[in-house]
């Protein structure tokens, strides 16, 4: 029997780690990430926000679109398929 992937388990807002968001005006579910990054040899520290989203919900995602998560609005800077199969997509973000 062929394996059928169920990404809804990963993108469960009610019971899991996902967050409800709005991507370019459409409701989506994401897993948010925000890594700290040193810049200018440690003179400043900033963040590298990104999120995982299902490929289906990211089908129309593009650089320049807005992603609203709670009270924070981000701008999509890049869209890259996550290995190994691209079922999830990582959106690289910047706070608007």
């Amino acid at each position, binding site marked *: 029997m062929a394996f059928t992937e169920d990404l809804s388990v990963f993108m469960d807002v009610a019971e899991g780690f996902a967050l409800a968001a709005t991507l370019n005006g459409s409701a989506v579910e994401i897993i948010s990430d925000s890594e700290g*990054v*040193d*810049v*200018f040899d440690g003179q*400043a520290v*900033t963040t590298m926000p990104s999120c995982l989203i299902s490929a289906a919900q990211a089908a129309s995602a593009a650089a320049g679109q807005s992603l609203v998560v709670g009270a924070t609005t981000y*701008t999509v800077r890049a869209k890259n398929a996550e290995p190994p199969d691209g079922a999830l997509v990582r959106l690289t973000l*910047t706070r608007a």
Partner: protein
Amino acid sequence: MALASAQVVDRVAAIIAAVPAYVGKVHTSRAWPLADADLPAWRVYAESEEVEPTGPTFPALQSHELMVACDGVARATANLDDSINAMAASALTALFASASTARLTPLNCAMSLRRIDREMATEGEAAIGRITLALRVRFHTFNNAPETIT
């Protein structure tokens, strides 16, 4: 009192800190990183200092050439270059507002701008930029009075 070069750094910092946009945002002794919430901000510090005695007598009059770096750091998601250039413009306007500021009065110095460097971070949100003003400050001390600019 403090070492003459430290007095110079403090005076430069005080002039930039008098710009309304930078009140409380100019640092002279901060080694830990600036966070997004701290920006825009300046770090002012002494770099190299060349000292040349001007004669064989004691106490010897010494000519100092101190390089002072002013790093302006800003965050902007659009037109970041404009943001850091605006920081430099406002700081330079204050530093060279008059002959008095260019002499770092009440210190007796001669300050000139030697270089401007720009850098934009590509890490993280790629929204942070830095502009560095390299200032040359000349002054004199006697070798037995390192805390007194003559």
